[in-house]
């Protein structure tokens, strides 16, 4: 089992985001959490990342603890790009993993020509791709992607999603979106959510059509 949430509750002040929420995710594959904005998807992702602690309940398999005891390595893409403003695009990627050559990766994501630019000189879509490239360069057992493709044009979006597909064979990719087309294209398993408090609408396993 990759990540397991057992009867997890989380509230910010009086706002209840999660109440007795239970979810288990496999250790590999691509899972899409689809739901409207503000339903608590980001909080769910942050709980999985170990950035938030649940008020009640248990989370198995976070950055602090894998199901077999060792910590999971988590590559996260936040809703914001969160790039280091003083560095070039290339160094923003290289800084998370010095053993990976960022250039071929940047080439595949179509941002190689921007490699030496300071990140604040890049367009929004370019910055987004730098943040995605950083997560891929870091690698890990789990990728947690919060609205990863927002701000990208449809062609680029498809190109980037194709980069993530093979990663799902060895790792768990959890991505959050409110875009049904994105969910259908990339998600092997789509979990429809609504809230708050966050709960599952229905779950359907998408058959691999190819």
């Amino acid at each position, binding site marked *: 089992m990759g990540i397991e949430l057992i009867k997890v509750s989380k509230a910010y002040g009086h706002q209840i985001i999660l109440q007795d929420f239970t979810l288990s995710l496999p250790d590999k594959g691509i899972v899409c959490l689809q739901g409207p904005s503000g339903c608590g998807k980001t909080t769910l992702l942050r709980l999985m990342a170990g*950035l938030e602690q649940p008020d009640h309940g248990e989370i198995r398999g976070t950055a602090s603890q894998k199901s077999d005891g060792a910590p999971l390595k988590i590559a*996260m893409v*936040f809703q*914001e790009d*969160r790039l*280091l403003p*003083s*560095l070039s695009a290339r160094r923003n990627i290289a*800084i998370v993993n010095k053993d990976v050559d960022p250039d071929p990766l940047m080439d595949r994501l179509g941002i190689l020509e921007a490699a030496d630019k*300071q990140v604040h000189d890049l367009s929004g879509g370019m910055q987004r791709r730098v943040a995605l490239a950083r997560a891929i360069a870091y690698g890990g057992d789990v990728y947690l992607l919060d609205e990863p493709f927002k701000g990208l044009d449809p062609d680029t979006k498809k190109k980037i999603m194709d980069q993530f597909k093979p990663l799902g064979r060895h790792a768990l990719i959890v991505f959050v979106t409110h875009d049904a087309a994105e969910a259908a294209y990339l998600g092997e398993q789509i979990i429809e959510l609504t809230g708050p408090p966050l709960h599952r609408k229905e779950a359907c396993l998408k058959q691999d059509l190819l």
Partner: protein
Amino acid sequence: MRISTTSDKSVNQNQPNQPNQPNQSNQPNQQVGIGKPQASLWARLWKKSHGLLVVIFWIMTWGIASLSVGQELLIPSPQVVFGRLAVLLSSKPFYVTVLASMGRIMAGFLLAVAAGILLSVLTETVPFFKRLFAPLVGMIKATPVASFIILALVWLNSEGVVTFVSFLMVLPLVWGNLSQGIRTTDRDLLEMGRMYHFSRWKIIRYVYIPAVMPHFISAITTGIGFAWKSGIAAEVLGTPKGSVGQALYEAKIYLETPDLFAWTLVVIVLSLIIERGVLWLIHWTAARL
């Protein structure tokens, strides 16, 4: 790390690479290489003359003010002041005096910067220290400089007072600005750093320092002016032998207004030169970190 864009530098850095490029004709390339700095030299000259015109305008305004008052005692004319300045500049004791004052004041300034960095880190990381030191900062900020000077004259010799007072004036400034810089550091980036397992050094180097740098530079710029003002005030009250403050004090006693003006000009120019020098040093260090 790049704080500001230094376009001249990048032009110069590119030049040595040019002969290595697969370009057969080296001649035109070199001409371009020579042509570029010349163009920027003219641009720089134009900029410099701009500044010069501003200076000339204000000196003329001063001259007109002096003429209309008509009393060298109240507002000495620029000719007289510059004449006095020339006499000062040609005497050896002048340099000894200036260096002595500068040494005392900059010692206070540098100590304050070092202490300010340490204290800001300490108070922003340990809430207890913040509460402990908050009244102290408030007190230092609100106490008149003159009170400190007089009090310090009781404790220390007159040379020590200068350093101590400069230190006290600059410390809250550096401390406050850096604390604000640390507090306003992007939480999102810190979280990102934690998620990607950045080392402590990486977090400091790539998240904290870029965030704090503008605050630090602003503290340094204001701080150098503060150090000179308060340091010279301490010298005037304590009159250590062979100091700028003593010269000012004597100018006051003997009503030598031109001397007062000349020494004041010296302090202003020194303060500006040191400010530029320190800022250059900070940028230089930051770029090589």
